[in-house]
C-alpha cells in the first residue's frame, strides 16, 4: 500500500502537469508560465525547507511567517533610514535568527511545547513588525542591488530559481549526509533515546529552530525584493502552504518522515495546482477548498501506508 502512496505522489504531480498542459497548452506549458511559477514558489520552498528541518526533529514552528515579515520590515525600515543593504540585510537575517533561537531555547531548555512556544513568540515578532513599520506599507529608498536579489535573471533563468536549488540542495545535503543531519533524524525518531545515546539534543534543537528562523527571514527578504514593498503581515500566508508541502512530501517517504525532496514535490504540487486552476479560471473559493482537500488526502494516504 505505501508503495502506491510513495509513487502515487510523484504520479499525481505528473498527472497534474499533463492535465493542465492538455487543458491549457498555450498558457500553462509556456516558458513564461514556468518561470513565473518558479518565482512564485521560490520563497515558499525556502519557508517549507525551514518547516521540514523543524519537523525532522519532531517539532513544529508556527512562527515562520511572522519571522519572514519581521525580516522584511527590519530591512525596509533600515532602508528608509538610509542604511546600506550590506547592513540592512544581515540585520534582518539576524532578527529572524534570534527569533528562532528564542523558540529553540523555550522548547529545548524550558520544555515548552513547540506549538505554544512558536505561536507565542511568533505573535511577539508580529507585534514587533507592526511597531517598527507603523502598520503600513514600506517602499521607500529601496536600493537597486536589493531588488536584483529577487527579480533578476541569470543565464536566462529567474534568479529566484537558483535560490531554490541552493537552499534546498544545502538542506538536503545536511540532512541526509552529515553528522548534524543524522542527529536531527535521531532526535525526531526518539528524543529520549537520542539524549541517552549522548547526542547534544538541547544544542541541536536550538540550532535547528535558529536555522529555521534564519531561512524564514531569507524568504521574507526575497519576497520583499521581488515585490519591492513590505507589509507587516506579508509573511503570514506562508504558514499553511509550507506545512501542506511538508505533509504532502511525507507521503513520498517509506516511513512517512519529512524530507527535502518530498517537500520540494509538495511545493511543486500545491504550486502547479494553484497556478493551473487560476489559468483555467477556477474560482478562488473552489481553489481554497481543493487545496485543503488535497492536504487531507495526502495525510490519509500516509496513515494508510503506515498502518501496514
Amino acid at each position, binding site marked *: 500500500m505505501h508503495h502506491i502512496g510513495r509513487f502515487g505522489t510523484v504520479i499525481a504531480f505528473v498527472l497534474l502537469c499533463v492535465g493542465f498542459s492538455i487543458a491549457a497548452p498555450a498558457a500553462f506549458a509556456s516558458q513564461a508560465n514556468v518561470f513565473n511559477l518558479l518565482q512564485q514558489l521560490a520563497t515558499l520552498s525556502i519557508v517549507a525547507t525551514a518547516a521540514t528541518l523543524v519537523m525532522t526533529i519532531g517539532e513544529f514552528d508556527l512562527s515562520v511567517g511572522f519571522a519572514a515579515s519581521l525580516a522584511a520590515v527590519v530591512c525596509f525600515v533600515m532602508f528608509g533610514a538610509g542604511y546600506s543593504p550590506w547592513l540592512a540585510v544581515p540585520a534582518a537575517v539576524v532578527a529572524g535568527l534570534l527569533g528562532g533561537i528564542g523558540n529553540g531555547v523555550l522548547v529545548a531548555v524550558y520544555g515548552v511545547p513547540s506549538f505554544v512556544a512558536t505561536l507565542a513568540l511568533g505573535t511577539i515578532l508580529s507585534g514587533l513588525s507592526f511597531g517598527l513599520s507603523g502598520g503600513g506599507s514600506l517602499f521607500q529608498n529601496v536600493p537597486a542591488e536589493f531588488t536584483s536579489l529577487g527579480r533578476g535573471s541569470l543565464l536566462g533563468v529567474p534568479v529566484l530559481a537558483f535560490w531554490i536549488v541552493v537552499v534546498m540542495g544545502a538542506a538536503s545535503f545536511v540532512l541526509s549526509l552529515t553528522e548534524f543531519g543524522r542527529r536531527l533524524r535521531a532526535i525526531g525518531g526518539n528524543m529520549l533515546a537520542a539524549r*541517552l545515546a549522548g547526542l547534544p539534543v538541547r544544542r541541536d534543537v536550538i540550532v535547528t529552530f535558529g536555522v529555521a528562523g534564519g531561512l524564514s527571514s531569507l524568504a521574507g527578504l526575497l519576497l520583499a525584493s521581488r515585490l519591492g514593498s513590505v507589509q507587516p503581515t506579508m509573511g503570514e500566508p506562508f504558514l499553511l502552504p509550507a506545512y501542506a508541502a511538508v505533509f504532502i512530501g511525507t507521503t513520498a517517504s517509506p516511513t512517512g518522515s519529512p524530507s527535502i525532496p518530498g517537500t520540494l514535490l509538495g511545493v511543486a504540487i500545491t504550486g502547479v495546482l494553484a497556478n493551473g486552476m487560476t489559468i483555467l479560471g477556477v474560482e478562488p473559493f473552489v481553489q481554497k477548498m481543493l487545496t485543503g482537500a488535497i492536504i487531507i488526502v495526502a495525510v490519509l494516504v500516509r496513515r494508510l501506508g503506515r498502518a501496514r
Partner: protein
Amino acid sequence: MSAAGNSSASPVLVLDGLGKSFGATRALDRASLSLAAGEILGLVGHNGAGKSTLIKIVGGAQAPDRGKILVDGMPVRFDTPHQSYAAGIRVIHQDAPLVPAFDTIDNCFLGRPYPKRLGTIDRSAMRQAIASVATEIAPELPLYRPVAELTVAERQFVRLLRAVVDAGRMLILDEPTAALPAEDARRFFEVLGRIRSRGTAIVFVSHRLDEVVELCDRAVVLRDGASVAELTGDDLSVGRLIAEMGGGAAAASTRTGPSPAAPAVLRILGFRTPRIGEPVSLTVRAGEVVALYGLLGSGRSSLLNALWGVEPIIAGDILIDEVRYRPHDPGSAVKAGISYVPADRHRTGLFPALDLVFNKTLPLLRSYRRWGVLPIPDAAAERRAFLEAARNVSMSFGSPAQLARTLSGGNQQKLIFSRWANRHSKVMLLDEPTEGVDVMAKQTIKDIIHAIAADGDAVLVSTSDREEALELGDRVLVFRDGAIVEQWVRGEATAAGLSAAAQAKPAQAATVRAR
C-alpha cells in the same frame, strides 16, 4: 501452587487447530488449547513461536485462517475486538494505557456506561461497584489516588481490577510481570490467585519460566506456531519447558571471574544522588561483573544513570583508571570510556523507524568521519562496522537497511549492544539487559556480557531478575531505599537471600505498596 480442583469442569474457552499465515510466513499452525474456569494456564514459547498471533486472534484483532474457537462449548467468530470483549475475554498488555490523572475508580469505568442518578453521574454507585471487588482481590490498592502516583505493580492491579469488574471471565495476561521485580511479582500472583478463586480463567503468557512453573496449573508450549506440549503436575518444570520450546539447555556457567590481581577500573566514593540517600562506595575491577539487585526505585538504576550523566550527583567522587571523572552529560561519559545499555529499549534505546546501521553507529558517529575529519559519515565504513558488530552479538537480520522495529525483541536488544561492540570501553553500564527477550536470546546476551567483561571492562548490571543477578554477578549488591544493604560474592548469594534483603520489611500481606 496446586492444580485447580475443577480442571475437569467443561472448558470456558477452547482453541482448536488455529492457523494463520502472513504471506509465506506461517505464524500459527495447529495451535490448540483449552481453558477451564478458575484455572491459570501458562502459555510459553520463544519469540516468533506464535504467542502474539494467538493472543491477537483470541482478542479479535486478527481472524484465523483455519481452526475453531469455542466459548462455553459454542463455536464463535471474532471479527472485531468488540466481539471477543462481549464474550468476556480481556487481553491485558503490561503497558495497556491508563489515564494518568484519573484515579482507580475512574480508570475502571473508562469506556463503560456510568451509573446515573437524576441525569448526572452517580459517583457513590461507581465507588461501591469498584470497592466491593477491589477489597476482594487487591485490598491494599488505593482507589482514590491518580494512577500516575501508583507504582508499576499497582497499575497492573488497576488493569486487572478493570477487567474483572467489567465482566471479564477469561483474562489473557501478556508478559504481566516483565516490569516487576520478584517481590512485586509475588504480590501480583497473590492478586491473581484471588481472581482465580472467583472462577475467572486466566492465561499467563510469560518468558519467565520459573514464574510459569510456580503459578500455573498447566502450561501449553508453542513452537513454530503449533502447540507441541501440555505439561501438568511434576512434568511442569523449567527444564521440561525449555526442552519443549526447542531451546538448547542453558549451559552451566563456567565463569571464573576476574583475576585477583586485576586493577581497579572504576572507583566510586561517598556517592549520593537524589535517589541514593546513603553514600555508596564501590570498586569494580577490570573483568569484573557487579550485579545491582533491588526493587524499582531502590537506587540501583539511579547509580547507573548518574554515572552516565543523566541524573545529578549530589556528592561523591568517581575515579576511572585512577583519573577523576565528573559526568555532566552522556557525551562526557562516552569520552571517559563508559558505555551504556538503557532499560526499556523501546522508550530509551531504539530508533524504531530508522535502519539498523543508523541505530548502531549513532552514539559513536564521530568515529566514521571521512578522512577522519569531515563531519560526513562514511557509509561504507559504517556498514562494515555494523556487519562486524552484528556478528559479535550474533544478531539475526535480513538487511542492514531494514528498520529497527522489524526486528524481534531479542535482536533489538542485541542491536543496542552492538553500538558498543567495536570499541573497548572501560566501564559498561547495563540496565535490565535481558528484559522482554526470549530464553535463547537471554543466554546469548549473558554470554555477550561475560565476553565484555573478559575484554577487561568493569561491568555494572542493574536488574530486577534474581536469577540473572546470581548468574551474571561476580558480586551481587542489593539496593533498598537508596542504600546498599547487602553484598555477596559469587556462590554465597541465594535467591531467597536477595529477596529478603531487597524488601523493606519482612513479607507482610499488608504492604502491597512497594517503594
